């Protein structure tokens, strides 16, 4: 029992929660609640959603286009005649599916390449670093557009659309994981325990995956959350440019916002405000979690329990914007 509770206390988010205090704990809790709320909505979408995301009619006939919020349609209907509330609820599911697939893919690819590059070094390392830097400096949305064209030719159904969006986002994220893991690997490979493993005669793959990998993952929860929020924004951006998922295949907030551009001009607000607010809230929730993890992982930014006065000697390294905070370890 005790071992179990010790393990529980060492789990990424739980550990930081115990560490946190005051405003920082508030931020972490707020972020976790918002994210949890949307996760529940995503899981229960078929139950709580009044209609299907692609439903245009019910027993009383067609819903009608651009109907203002009413009893039958709490958040109104879109220009295409869909129910806004249902599209927002189902959109949560699409968003989380894309995040999970994208983050998993970029995580494995990036971690593997970073480990390989950092541990083996040499020309492979140099080539990969130059490529990663070039990709990193480029506007991520443009790269995602190119990837989306390649994967789906621009239009797709539910799973092909989700995969296409996720892979497009992955292309953008691999360099971030790559850089962080590579830097950690280089630091760790010169430590004594790696040398001892070599002396014992452990094989290179065994050292890489058993000894180095396990010790280089401390910053990953942070990057995972930050990338999730960027994944939502990229997905919405792709959808807004018409590279998302077809409205009959799944609900996607960016696509709905694209269709709402002309509505706004004629004062129809409900088609854009609700999907937009959904994006903002999910990104906000996930970012708050990531931010708190970042602050808590950095002793200079952590609000201490005893010594209340915070004196960050040099906050330079922690000064990067949200999406780059992950590089603090570099």
């Amino acid at each position, binding site marked *: 029992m005790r071992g179990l509770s010790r393990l529980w206390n060492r789990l990424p988010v739980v550990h930081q929660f115990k560490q946190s205090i005051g*405003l920082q704990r508030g931020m972490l809790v707020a972020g976790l609640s918002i994210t949890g709320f949307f996760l529940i909505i995503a899981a229960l979408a078929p139950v709580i959603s009044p209609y299907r995301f692609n439903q245009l009619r019910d027993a009383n006939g067609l819903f009608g286009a651009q109907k203002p919020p009413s009893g039958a349609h709490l958040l109104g209907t879109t220009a295409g005649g869909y129910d806004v509330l249902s599209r927002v609820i189902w959109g949560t599911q699409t968003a989380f599916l894309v995040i999970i697939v994208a983050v998993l893919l970029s995580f494995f690819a990036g971690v593997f390449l970073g480990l390989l590059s950092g541990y083996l070094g040499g020309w492979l390392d140099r080539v990969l*670093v*130059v*490529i990663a*830097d*070039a*990709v*990193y*400096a*480029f*506007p*991520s*949305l*443009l790269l995602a*557009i*190119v*990837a989306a*064209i*390649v994967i789906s*030719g*621009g239009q797709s159904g539910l799973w092909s659309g989700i995969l296409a969006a996720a892979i497009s986002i992955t292309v953008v994220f691999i360099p971030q994981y790559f850089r962080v893991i590579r830097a950690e690997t280089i630091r760790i490979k010169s430590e004594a325990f790696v040398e001892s493993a070599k002396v014992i005669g452990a094989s290179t793959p065994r050292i890489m995956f058993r000894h180095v990998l396990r010790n280089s993952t401390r910053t990953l929860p942070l990057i995972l959350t930050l990338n999730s*929020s960027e994944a939502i*924004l990229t997905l*919405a*951006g792709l959808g*807004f*440019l018409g590279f998302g998922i077809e409205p009959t295949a799944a609900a996607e907030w*960016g696509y709905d*916002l694209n269709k*709402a*551009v002309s509505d*706004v*001009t*004629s*004062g129809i607000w409900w088609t*854009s*405000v609700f999907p*937009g607010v959904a*994006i*903002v809230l999910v*990104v*906000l929730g996930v*970012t*708050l979690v990531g*931010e708190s993890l970042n602050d808590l992982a950095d002793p200079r930014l952590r*609000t201490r329990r005893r010594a209340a006065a*915070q*004196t*960050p*000697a040099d*906050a*330079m*390294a*922690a*000064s*990067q*914007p*949200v999406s*780059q905070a992950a590089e603090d370890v*570099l």
Partner: protein
Amino acid sequence: MTTVAPAPVAPAPAGRARRDRGGSTLWRYLLIRFLLIFPTVFILVTMVFVLMRITGDPITIALGGKLPPDQLAERIHQAGYDRPILVQYFEYLGHIFTGNFGTSITDGQPISQILVTHGGATLELTLYALLVAFVIGIPLGQVAAYFRDRWPDAVLRIFAILAYATPVFFAGLLLKLVFAVWLDVLPVAGRASTRTEILFSTMPNRTGIYLIDAIRTGDPQIIGDVLSHAVLPGVALGLLTAGIFLRLVRTNVIGTLSRDYVDAARSRGVSEIRLVRKHAWKPALIPIITVIGLQIAVLLGGAVLTETTFEWKGLGFELAYYLSKRDFVAVQGIVALLAVIVALTNFIVDIIAALIDPRVRY
């Protein structure tokens, strides 16, 4: 690390620069940094080329189904898309080197021409956005640093996260809804009213940057027209970066506020406001300049979305247009062009950072 991308924000340890050789290190740095532009552009252009050609030839994608098969094959042959891929690749590289980014399929426009006619609009929008980001982000960052760990700081930090969490196109739609539709004080879309557009189109050697063109006419009404159209897109795109500047200024000023020289100034009785605004502020500027380089890439990506939202006819608007037409030669051309622009701006920003801070050298 042979970093081409963001120069590290944290400055290298002071004193390590080889001072004995004086200015020569700066020139060496400039030269190396300049040469690094080429591999970056080369990698991006190659990647875009390879990715785009995996899907097949662009003519079939753009016109397949619209033309009978024999005409389609004829056009593919004319454009040379039936030759070995390596031959096409080297030809493409050669063209890019000479500034030829290809010709769009759907309307036969050279991509370099698109840059000439629409580049000014994107440049103008990006500059407005940077201006908004500075005006909002920097003072608020100083305020947050001054009130660190108290409620104004908490509010501003949440504002910064919200600014990041709001997609530019949603921010644009909201601003449009409130200021253009409900309050009706600003125009809904476009870069200028139709009257001004017609006037500009007849203007000799126009710059394409509307503000400059408007000032040249000397008519305050036209200047006001152009500026009123710029407010909403500029704010929508600028907010994204403003949040990042706010955080950056906050953490850096807090960092420098605990340095010895600031303590010394404090002990001489310098007020806390003056410490934030003068003493701790200047060293905090250096990381901001480096981050501007990164932000240019973010702003260009955001410009695609902002321009689509506001029908601001720049490079991003054109890109979205060709995307909807499935004209992937034009898309490839514009993306390659933007890659060159990003590489060049990063180079310029790194140079400025090196000139300001002697510690940023290799």
